[in-house]
C-alpha cells in the first residue's frame, strides 16, 4: 500500500518558476503543482532513487478553462477522467471547463520516472492531486477576498465561481486566476470531508468516449507528419541474433520502397506507405546469426526449470520450521504447476514515430513509460536525452508491454539515417507477437499437507521462472509474488525461488507474477481443502481469520454467487481470492463441461479497492482484467521452437471473444481505506476460480495453463 503521503506533500507554485510562461495556449492565470512524496513507489519499483521534484498539474486560464495536465498516459484505464475527478472535486470547478492533456516528459515537473504501470495511478495521486486542487481553490479565495476587500471567511466556492455570501457577488475563477498566481502558496490546506465530494466516488463519465467512438482519438499508429516515411523492421527471428548479411536489391525494386538500411536492431525498409514497406520487407533476403539459441524449445525450457528446482534456491519466505515440517505431515498434498510464456497482444501493435532535425529528436510514442521512451530514443539517435521530446499519444492497450520502450530506440536508429525526414515505424501483428517481452513461463513444485484432523501443517513451494525487475538476495519478487506473500495461516511455510533464465525476453504482464502464481496458489489451497474433506470456501475462511479484508471479499463473493446453492446438473462453482496492487478481490466462477467442452457461465467479482474514485471505471477495469485473465486461463500460450516464437497472429494465439463471455457481476466494497489499484485486481483470480470449478464438476485437477478442452478428457 502507498504510505500516507500527507506529511511529505509540498505544494509549489510553479507559475513563478517559468513553467507557466512556457505553457502554450493559455492566457494569464494560475498554474500549480506539488512535490511528489519521497515514498513514491513507482521510482522504487524501477530501482531508481526517488527524487523530489515540483510538478505541475493544473492551469486556470482567463477564459475559465481548467487545463488538467495528466501525469499518466491513457491506455483505457481512465486516468484522464479519474485523476481529473480528484483535482476537480477539491478545486470545486466546473467539470465542463476541464481540458485534459497528457503531460510531456519533464523530470523537473513530473518526476524522474514518468510511467503508468502497476495500477499506481490512483494510489500515487489520490492525495497530491486532491491537495493541488484544494490549494488552488484556497488561492482563488484569497485573491477574491483581496479584490473585494472582504474577509475570506465570508466567501465560498461553487462550480468555478467564488461567491460572497454577504451579497451574492460572484467572480469566475478565470477573472482572478492571474491575481491568485501571484500569491504565496498556503501550506496544509484542509481537504474536503468525503461526504461533500461532488466527483470523487461518483460514476463520472469518461472524457474520452466520444472521440474514441468517432475514430478521432489519435493513437501512436495514427501519427502523420508532412513528408513522413513509413518503416517496417526485419528483426532477428531468434532473440539476440544479428544480421550476418542481407540482399536488398529485390526489396528496393518494390514500388513505393524508398530505402533499405541496416540498423543495430535489424534491417529497415522505408517506403511511401506501410503496405509498400511490408512488401519490400518480404522481398528481403537476410542471413541471421541465432546467437547460440537456435535449438532452444519449450520442452527444453521446462526441463531446465525442473532441474533448477532440484538445486538449492533462494529463500523468499519461511514460517515456522519451513520444509523441515514436512516430516510432520499426516496426509501429503504434493502438486506440480506450470504456466507458459504469454504475449500481451494489445490491439494496437507496437509503433513509434520520430524525426531528427537540428540536433534534436522528436518522438510520438504510445508508451507506458515516457521517460524510458525518451532514454531509448536518445540511445537510438545518439542525441542527448535533454534534446529528445516525447509526445504521448493514446495507447491501443498496454497491459505492461508498453512499459518497455525498444520501439523508440528502433525508430530513432532509423530516423538517424534520414535526418530531417519523419519516420513512422509500424510493427506487424506478427512482429508484435514474436518480438514481445513475455510474461515468463513458470514451474512450481508444491509439497505440503495436513495433520490427522485435516488442518494444514506445512506448505513448501519451489518456484522456477525467469527473473525481471530487481533481483535481491537471489530473489525476483516478480517471480514469487502471489505465493510468498499469500495470507493463509499455515504454521510452516517455505517458498524458494530458483532463478531460471532463458534467452526469451520477459517483462511485466497485467498483474505480473500474480498472473500465474495465484492460479498455482489458489488451486493448491483448493487441493488442500479437498484433501481435508472440507468445503473450499470454509477451508479458506478458517485460514484467513486474521486478514479481515480478504475474508470480507471472500464471503461477499460466496454470498453473491450463491455458494452452496443448487445448480443445474453438470454445473459447478470454484472460488479464489487474492490481495494484489493494494486491493482485495474474490471471484466465483460457474462452469459446465458438456461433451468435453468447457463453458464458463457466470463470474462474480468482488473487489475491495479502498476508497473508490470512479465506480464506473472500476467496474470496467474489474471486467477488463478478468477477461484478460480469462484469455490466459483458457487459451494463451507462447511456445518456443528453434529458439523462436511459434505463434504469430490471433489464429495461433486466440483470445476471448464476445460469444465466449460469461455473465459478469461486479461488486465493489464501500470503503474509506486508502485507495488500491483496479487495473490488475481481477486478472489473477479467474484461472483458479475456473480450475477449481472444473475440479468440483469433474474431479479432474488441471495444473497447467492454459486449461484447454483437450485437458478435460
Amino acid at each position, binding site marked *: 500500500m502507498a504510505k500516507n503521503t500527507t506529511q511529505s506533500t509540498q505544494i509549489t507554485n510553479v507559475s513563478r518558476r517559468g513553467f507557466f510562461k512556457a505553457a502554450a495556449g493559455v492566457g494569464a492565470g494560475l498554474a500549480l503543482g506539488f512535490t511528489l512524496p519521497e515514498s513514491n513507489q513507482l521510482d522504487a519499483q524501477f530501482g531508481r532513487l526517488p527524487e523530489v521534484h515540483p510538478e505541475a498539474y493544473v492551469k486556470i486560464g482567463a477564459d475559465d478553462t481548467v487545463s488538467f495536465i495528466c501525469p499518466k498516459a*491513457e*491506455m*483505457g*484505464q*481512465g486516468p484522464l477522467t479519474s485523476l481529473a475527478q480528484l483535482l476537480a472535486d477539491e478545486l470545486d470547478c466546473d467539470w465542463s471547463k476541464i481540458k485534459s492533456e497528457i503531460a510531456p516528459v519533464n523530470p523537473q515537473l513530473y518526476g524522474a520516472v514518468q510511467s503508468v504501470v502497476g495500477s499506481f495511478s490512483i494510489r500515487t495521486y489520490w492525495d497530491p492531486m486532491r491537495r493541488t486542487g484544494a490549494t488552488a481553490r484556497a488561492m482563488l479565495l484569497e485573491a477574491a477576498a483581496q479584490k473585494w476587500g472582504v474577509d475570506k471567511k465570508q466567501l465560498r466556492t461553487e462550480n468555478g465561481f467564488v461567491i460572497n455570501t454577504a451579497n451574492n457577488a460572484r467572480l469566475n475563477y478565470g477573472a482572478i486566476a492571474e491575481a491568485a498566481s501571484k500569491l504565496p502558496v498556503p501550506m496544509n490546506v484542509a481537504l474536503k470531508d468525503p461526504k461533500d465530494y461532488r466527483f470523487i466516488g461518483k460514476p463520472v*463519465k*469518461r472524457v*474520452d*468516449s*466520444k472521440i*474514441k*467512438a*468517432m*475514430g*478521432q*482519438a*489519435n*493513437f501512436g*499508429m*495514427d501519427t*502523420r507528419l508532412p513528408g513522413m516515411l*513509413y518503416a517496417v523492421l526485419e528483426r532477428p527471428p531468434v532473440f539476440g541474433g544479428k544480421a550476418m548479411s542481407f540482399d536488398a536489391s529485390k526489396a528496393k525494386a518494390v*514500388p513505393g520502397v524508398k530505402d533499405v538500411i541496416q540498423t543495430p536492431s535489424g534491417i529497415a525498409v522505408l517506403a*511511401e*506507405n*506501410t*503496405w*509498400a514497406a*511490408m512488401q519490400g520487407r518480404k522481398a528481403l533476403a537476410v542471413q541471421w546469426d541465432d546467437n547460440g539459441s537456435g535449438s532452444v524449445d519449450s520442452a527444453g525450457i521446462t526441463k531446465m526449470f525442473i532441474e533448477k528446482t532440484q538445486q538449492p534456491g533462494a529463500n523468499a519466505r519461511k514460517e515456522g520450521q519451513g520444509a523441515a515440517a514436512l516430516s510432520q505431515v499426516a496426509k501429503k498434498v504434493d502438486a506440480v504447476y506450470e504456466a507458459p510464456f504469454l504475449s500481451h*497482444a*494489445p*490491439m*494496437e*501493435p507496437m509503433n513509434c514515430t520520430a524525426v531528427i532535425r537540428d540536433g534534436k529528436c522528436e518522438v510520438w510514442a504510445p508508451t507506458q513509460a515516457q521517460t524510458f521512451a525518451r532514454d531509448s530514443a536518445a540511445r537510438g539517435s545518439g542525441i542527448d536525452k535533454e534534446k529528445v521530446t516525447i509526445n504521448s499519444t*493514446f495507447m*491501443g*492497450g*498496454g*497491459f505492461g508491454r508498453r512499459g518497455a520502450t525498444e520501439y523508440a530506440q528502433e525508430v530513432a536508429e532509423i530516423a538517424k539515417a534520414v535526418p530531417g525526414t519523419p519516420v513512422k515505424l*509500424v510493427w506487424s*501483428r506478427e512482429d508484435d507477437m514474436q518480438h514481445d517481452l513475455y510474461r515468463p513461463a513458470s514451474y512450481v513444485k508444491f509439497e505440503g499437507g495436513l495433520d490427522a484432523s485435516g488442518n494444514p501443517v506445512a506448505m513448501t513451494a519451489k518456484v522456477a521462472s525467469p527473473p525481471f525487475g530487481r533481483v535481491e538476495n537471489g530473489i525476483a519478487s516478480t517471480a514469487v509474488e502471489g505465493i510468498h506473500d499469500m495470507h493463509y495461516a499455515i504454521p510452516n511455510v517455505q517458498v524458494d525461488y530458483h532463478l531460471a533464465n532463458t534467452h526469451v525476453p520477459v517483462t511485466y504482464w497485467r498483474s505480473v507474477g500474480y498472473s500465474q502464481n495465484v492460479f498455482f496458489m489458489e488451486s493448491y489451497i483448493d487441493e488442500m481443502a479437498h484433501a481435508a474433506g472440507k468445503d473450499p470456501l470454509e477451508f479458506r475462511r478458517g485460514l484467513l481469520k486474521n486478514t479481515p479484508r480478504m475474508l470480507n471479499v471472500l464471503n461477499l463473493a460466496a454470498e453473491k454467487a450463491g455458494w452452496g446453492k443448487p445448480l443445474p446438473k453438470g454445473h459447478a462453482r470454484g472460488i479464489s481470492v487474492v490481495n494484489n496492487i493494494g486491493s482485495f478481490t474474490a471471484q466465483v466462477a460457474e462452469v459446465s463441461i458438456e461433451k468435453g467442452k468447457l463453458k464458463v457461465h457466470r463470474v462474480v467479482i468482488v473487489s475491495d479497492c479502498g476508497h473508490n474514485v470512479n465506480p*464506473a471505471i472500476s467496474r*470496467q477495469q474489474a*471486467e*477488463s*482484467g*478478468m*477477461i*484478460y485473465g*480469462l484469455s490466459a486461463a483458457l487459451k494463451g500460450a507462447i511456445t518456443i521452437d528453434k529458439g523462436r516464437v511459434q505463434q504469430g*497472429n*490471433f*489464429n495461433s494465439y486466440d*483470445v*476471448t*471473444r*464476445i*460469444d465466449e*463471455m460469461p455473465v*459478469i457481476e461486479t461488486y465493489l466494497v464501500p470503503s474509506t481505506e486508502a485507495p488500491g489499484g483496479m487495473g490488475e485486481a481481477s486478472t489473477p483470480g479467474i484461472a483458479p476460480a475456473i480450475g477449481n470449478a472444473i475440479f468440483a464438476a469433474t474431479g479432474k485437477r488441471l495444473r497447467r495453463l492454459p486449461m484447454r478442452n483437450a485437458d478435460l478428457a
Partner: protein
Amino acid sequence: MASVKFNVNGKSQTVDVVPEMPLLWVLRDVLGMTGTKFGCGAALCGACTVHVEGNAVRSCSTPVQNVSGKNVTTIEGLSTDGSHPVQAAWIELDVPQCGYCQSGQIMQATALLNKNSKPSDADIDEVMRGNICRCGTYQDIRKAIHRASELKAKGGRG
C-alpha cells in the same frame, strides 16, 4: 500502379496505387483517414472493419481494386458529431476503454443493425465474435448494441 476510383463516405476518391494494396492502407496512408485501425493484417481481429456497399468487410484483407466503383463507409462517415445511433449508444454507455478496436466494433455493429434492427444476444454474438477487444468491453458492447437498436427505433438515423 493503377488508378482506382471509388466513393468514401459519399465523396469520390481516385488513388494511384498498386491495385493489390489493401483498402486499409489506402484509407490510412494515402487518404489520411486514420479512424480505421490496423490490428492483425489477416482478417482475424476486426479492427479494420468498414462497409462496402453496406456490408461489413475487413479492409486489411480487401485489395483496393475490389472496391473500384463501389461505396465505402468508414467510421468517419457515420456522423460528424457522434450522433449516429450506434456512436451515440457507445458514448452514452462509455463503451471504449483503450478504444483502439472500437471503430471496427462500431462498424460491425452498424452493419448488424442495418440488417437486423432488433438483434438478440445470440445474434450479436454470432456477428460480433470476429471483433476482438483486448480490454474486454464485450459486455458493454452488447448493451450498447441493444441501446442503439432502441435509439434507431426512436427515429435516430443510421
